[in-house]
């Protein structure tokens, strides 16, 4: 099966070390851009208390949740350090200045 990639917006619309959210029928995902211009897509809900990760501080390939400072890996979605939990991640890439996310994110189950 070929993978469908969906254009979710312009790469330039996200500042470096920043994030924007994308609405889906089952909730939001957060799209991150790191200092090195990598992009990552994760569910926009911290595994702890569903904090909006898109509003966190991005450092390295990690984001810190704005509600209680859980640190989540943008690569794996896993909570770092002593905290345990994970959020769903979705393959994302940049092509011709556009951010593409693998279509699976639209068909996912609602985030808890």
């Amino acid at each position, binding site marked *: 099966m070929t993978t469908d990639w969906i254009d979710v917006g312009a790469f330039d619309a996200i500042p470096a070390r920043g994030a*924007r959210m*994308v609405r889906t029928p089952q909730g939001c995902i957060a799209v991150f851009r790191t200092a090195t211009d990598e992009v990552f897509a994760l569910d926009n809900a911290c595994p702890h208390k569903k904090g909006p990760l898109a*509003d966190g501080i991005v450092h390295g390939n990690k984001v810190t949740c*704005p509600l209680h400072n859980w640190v989540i890996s943008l690569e794996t979605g896993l909570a770092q350090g002593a905290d345990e939990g994970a959020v769903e991640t979705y393959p994302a890439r940049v092509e011709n200045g556009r951010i593409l996310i693998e279509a699976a994110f639209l068909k996912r189950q609602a985030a808890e």
Partner: protein
Amino acid sequence: MQKLVVIGAGMASGRMLEHMFEADPQAYEVTLFNAEPRGNYNRIMLSPVLSGEKSYEEIVTHDDAWYADNAVTCRFGERITGIDRDRKVVISEKGETPYDKLVIGTGSAPFIIPCPGHDLPGVVAFRDLEDVDAMKTAAGSDGRAVVIGGGLLGLEAAAALRLQGMEVTVLHLMGHLMERQLDEAAGYLLKKDLEGRGITVLTGASTKAIMGEGRVEKVVLEDGTVIPADIVVMAVGIRPSVALGQAAGLEMGRAIKVDAQMVTSDPDVLAVGECVEFDGNLFGLVAPLYDQARVAAKTLLGEDDVFRMRELSTKLKVTGCDLFSAGDFADGEGREDIVFRDPGRGIYKRLVIEDDVVLGAVFYGDTADSNWYFGLIKDKTDISEMRDTLIFGPAYQGGAQVDPMAAVAALPPDAEICGCNGVCKSTITEAIGAGATDLGSLRATTKASASCGTCTGLVEQLLAVTLGEDFRSKEAGICGCTDLTHEEVRRLIKARELKSQTAVWQELGWKTVDGCHVCRPAINFYLLADWPLEYQDDLQSRFINERKHANIQKDGTFSVMPRMWGGITNPAELRAIADAADKYNVPTVKVTGGQRIDLLGVKSEDLPHIWADLNAAGMVSGHAYSKGLRTVKTCVGTDHCRFGTQDSTGLGIKLEKALWGSWTPHKVKLAVSGCPRNCAEATCKDVGVICVDSGYQIGVAGAAGMDVKETERLADVPTEQEAIDLTIAFVQLYRENAKYLDRPYKWVAKVGLDWVKERVVHDLDNRAALIERFAISQSVYQKDPWAEHAATKTDAYTPLSDFRLEAAE
């Protein structure tokens, strides 16, 4: 009890006493003489004190309490003038002191080149705290320094003086810097590195004379070059201080001769440290001194131990200059080199090999694996099997593991971790097993990393490897990204004029690529507070509340609170607030403790629009979310109140109009009460003014949050303008000096109210300068973020895209 007299409170004798008291506190009644008017401090840390990276208090190794606990009679500032070995007494200006055993630890004195002018005022050495104080005084005047001697000590002094803002020239007699520890290539890289820091380095420079009328003005070289100078630092070497020993008739070589038990030619007299000669060797580095201290303590207690010479390594303690050298790296018959260079990154590594054994190593720019190589040198390991990959370090031996943790884990138990204190890996892991689970307690129990500190990272890796997930790093550093404390970083940002976050991360050796959620907001604040005109505020380094200018709530919605100057509003504003609450379906409207109205539960994408509506009614952001000025709470004062003494509402509004928009280390809340009945609760605010008949009582450093604390009186002033001036000056002093997230009461507790008064109340010039700097900052930052974001940044508040409708189709 036997009497032990110790002459000299230096690092060797200090360590010897520690060992002795640990083994047997009752063995001796100890009298300690020191010509310097203080006890033992960590002399090898003088350069960070000179640069301002550390304070004297931080390098004290034995304080008064330690001496008292061990019943040491301290006679500091009292010089010993003679030793009578026949009668077993030492003689000082205050009389004679008898001993059963005597330890001489008189150390060394700086070698001063006897050129013309060497005795002019302004020529200093770099040996003790007096020298450091003299240099610091001179550095304060933004002067020019000439450092004679490009060895370890001279370069540390040069770098530290440069950090203090002086114009620095280093004169070195030889062809390249640190020729005893470095080969020419590494010396070149070091020179380039120092020049990059603004230090002028002249090699092959022979000093002819120091000249000046009454004090140092210039240095003249043999080739005729003239270098202007306000101070000249002599750092060409040391010579053992042996006059006492010599006069007492002890057997001498170049210093006081001792045997392997540290005993001199007199069986009741021992000597340790830089004043001894053992087997033809003199000593200048700390590691063998500590070995001597251990042996001397054993000898005093009648136990057997033997001092042995061992391989030495050197590291330079200049922040950002990584160099390491060990062993013998001179060229020679039958010797081979393995050299690795990466000019782009300024890295140079060289190993000298003979008969498949590493004899010496020189590293510049990357010294992470130096301990492993040092182990190879000491153990004379046969490297024939790994020769191909040897230069790439331990991570490349036997597999492709590049994890530094794995490299530490792979070290053998007897690998030396702390060179200064001779602590090997197994000693540390045993201490960790016995409950020393952080750096502080590990230093206390093993002394690992407690001296020069360059092995701190290695010790922490060892902690992490041994404890795994249980290890929580850092005693005082801001966060895992740096070992530096907030205060150190603030000082370095100013001293080294670091004006961007990248500069901070690079120059101060951040361990992460771009910081973390703990350090980034702090560094962002420090930079914008210290360099308001140069630094560009970074929204991505701000907590969400300050990035979106609203308070995030637990469901991800936000609260909106317009400013109400001094708590005064009017029907038009109230109507606009009511309309906004209706239009954006605000679920909760609340009157706050700071006398304004909070609209809670606003969605992110509505924020720019509700702000635009409130802006249209003349209102601006109340910064109810910021580490900045929050509210100025007031009572109605003379306008209406029959007790009011002054126009407290008017003063409150003036203060709020002056201070709003300023960013501070933590939130700042003010209040002005019109009389001592204090209806505005001014006595528990960061700054609280109480109006009285004769004027204004200004209190600061109150608290009514996690802690409750009454304000302390800063000053009483007769006029409203002075009340405003003092408040602004206090806030600016707080902005420039406090640690991020310290409220004013915590900061004042650290620096002391007198320190604050001196700068804000008594020194009028300083008060004016503070107010001026605040005005400069406000010229940039006093702007309504709501208007700006509503006009230019609405996108940031909306989803990047919305797929809800498409899916429904």
